[in-house]
């Protein structure tokens, strides 16, 4: 089964969350100039006919009492990450399709959580409790139906299309609900006497393809309940890397190390926010004649610790004899695994309190960085070149 999770009026809801005084009022997030358009409107504003992509001036006309706010993308992104990380705790196969929407393949996981319905309710509950926002979830045997389902009961909805109910659902599904069918396609279909996917199924495929091109094939597939597209998690990120061309070519290892450490730190932070750990740490060196070298090492236990990645990256650089000046340096971490996977603890690291100290330090730095930005806190050893 596939879930489609769609946050309800995401931007506007975040604004309400951060400023409870907005509750119950019309909230419209969008460009501030008169040439701007509506990015999001809450459900109160929608009652006045305001919808996204509507020009702001028109929205002002329709809903004069609304609160107009500029979008705060960083804040939305932050909450989006939190939401995605909650989803990833339920299934490793999470595919974010935008800042407020994701597909999830829960095949095999649903029974762990007491069935599809119970699992979806748990997801909704956790997002509500931990993020403070509501979402709508559609569950269906494939992506396209899941997306349609999530839209059926908005806001705060849950619609499940069970495999056995799929057929009758498709029969009566209006083609206007089908993703990809806009105004013009919709009209063309209507002129062909097609208003539901059931009609599509009864229509000869070759004729449909003649009129609509390849979309005709796709539509026919949809009408048969087929959507082969798989949920492809972005956590299948193969590696996380950072590299910088230096202000000038140098052979000064201490100078290079500071760059390396800054990069390693940023990568570690990225790994932590992605919820993954990596086993292979590599450094990349481009010499002044553009010759490129990489050196890598695999460690036993996958890590997301700043300290460990810095330590290994610096060790790799130490082991590299510099013969020419260096113009570019970079670090990458690969062989990523989900941090949610069970981890066998190591007997010789247990008494090593440094490990838990490191983790707590990372957490503290992450929290500070999240709230005050990356310049708020950093390693003293990195300060010199800033």
């Amino acid at each position, binding site marked *: 089964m596939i879930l489609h999770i769609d946050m309800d009026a995401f931007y506007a809801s975040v604004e309400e969350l951060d400023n409870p005084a907005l509750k119950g009022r019309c909230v419209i997030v969008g460009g501030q100039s008169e040439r701007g358009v509506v990015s999001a409107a809450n459900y109160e504003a929608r009652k006045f006919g305001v919808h996204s992509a509507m020009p702001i001036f028109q929205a002002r006309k329709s809903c004069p009492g609304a609160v107009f706010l500029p979008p705060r993308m960083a804040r939305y992104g932050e909450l989006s990450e939190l939401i995605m990380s909650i989803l990833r705790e339920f299934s490793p196969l999470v595919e974010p399709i935008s800042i407020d929407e994701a597909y999830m393949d829960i095949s095999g996981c649903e029974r762990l959580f007491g069935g599809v319905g119970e699992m979806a309710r748990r997801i909704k509950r956790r997002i509500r409790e931990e993020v403070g926002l509501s979402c709508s979830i559609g569950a269906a045997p494939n992506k396209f139906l899941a997306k349609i389902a999530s839209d059926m009961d908005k806001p705060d909805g849950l619609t499940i299309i069970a495999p056995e109910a799929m057929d009758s659902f498709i029969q009566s599904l209006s083609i206007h609900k089908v993703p990809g069918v806009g105004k013009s396609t919709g009209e063309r279909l209507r002129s062909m006497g097609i208003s539901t996917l059931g009609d599509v199924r009864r229509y000869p495929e070759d004729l449909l393809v003649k009129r609509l091109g390849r979309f005709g094939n796709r539509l026919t597939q949809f009408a048969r309940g087929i959507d082969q597209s798989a949920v492809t998690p972005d956590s299948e990120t193969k590696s996380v890397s950072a590299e910088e061309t230096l202000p000038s070519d140098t052979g000064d290892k201490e100078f290079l190390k500071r760059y390396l450490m800054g990069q390693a730190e940023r990568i570690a932070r990225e790994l932590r926010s992605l919820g993954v750990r990596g086993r292979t740490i590599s450094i990349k060196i481009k010499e002044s004649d553009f010759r490129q070298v990489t050196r890598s090492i695999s460690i036993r236990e996958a890590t997301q610790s700043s300290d460990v990645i810095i330590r290994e990256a610096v060790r790799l650089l130490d082991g590299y004899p510099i013969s020419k000046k260096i113009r570019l340096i970079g670090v990458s971490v690969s062989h990523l695994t989900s941090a949610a996977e069970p*981890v*066998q603890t190591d*007997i010789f690291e247990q008494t090593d309190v440094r490990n838990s100290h490191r983790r707590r330090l990372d957490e503290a730095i992450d929290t500070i960085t999240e709230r005050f930005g990356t310049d708020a806190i950093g390693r003293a050893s990195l300060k010199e070149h800033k």
Partner: protein
Amino acid sequence: MHFSIRRDSFLEGIQKTLSIVDKRTTLPILNNILLKAQPGTIQIVATDREIGLSSYYKATIHDPGEITVGARKLYEMLREIDGETVDCQVMENNWVHVTSGKILYKIPGISADDFPEVPDSETMESIIVPCEVLKSLFEKTFFAISQDEMRPNLNGVLFSISGGKIAVVATDGHRLSLANARLDNDVGNSSNLDGIIIPRKGVSEIRKLVEGGGESALWVVDGVCVLKKQETLLRVSLINAEYPDYKRVIPQEEGVTVQMDKQQLLHSLRRMSVMSTEKFSGVKVDIFDNRMVLTSTNPDVGEARDEIDVSYTGDRMVVGYSVRYLIEGIEPVNGDIVSFDIRSGDGPGVIRVPGSDEYMCIVMPIKLRTEKGLD
């Protein structure tokens, strides 16, 4: 070189060399064994450079000399020969004729000059240890030896004879197994057998040699551990590395200790291991209200649950472990009762024999991060 020998003792002698020679080697002569005919005996020598095995067998020597031949083929020939005695002779161009009655095998040999030297004559001060003791010590530790090439110092057991005690330790970083035995004679603290690392393969050869009881003499010379049992001499190159300070990781305070019937616990764990796959082999141990509930949940396979009555009324404890590590750690326990000492969080679990310090296995938990996702 020409000798006659009883087929069964020749066959036995060659068979013992197979695990040493039988592997891919870049040096073809290491696929061979060295046969040395000396008055009254033949010596059979095999080596892979790390491990050397030399043993003597009674034979009738017609003409002394030496030659090397392929161990595997010689073994197969002797296995198929049905006569009581076998005759072995080196002909021109190092061809070796193996005959018995009307049977004749001809195989090409390689001159013994190219065979690596396996010294067997040095006389050293040795420590005598009953084979049974060694067998039991290695049985209790072998499984925990690391096979991770990144940790060469853990690719063997730490073997220490000191005072009247032998201790063997093995660990792969996830579990640590420790076995102790007392010696009848106190060897004092000067032994150079105190704190050597014997590689995994060497341990497995020693285990074969000590089968069948008797006594063995042990000594160390030039980074090589030598074990002599009757007419057989096994030389194992030691791992030259620093073994981690294992005493540091043995928990000093007791955690929550429950005692259980060994077989019952093993059966329960094997039931859990049905869920194990290469990727996942965790078991959740949940102790509360005089019960120990075992569950194993593998998204790819399913779920298993079992329960054992224990005597425990303290705070509820939930810890995850690798099923295999628990099973392997419990199997060596002598007797019917096993004691399991559990700590919450990242603390180690300790398997012991109640009232005895002859064996201990520390098993590190698996952090079950999925807990958070469940509610």
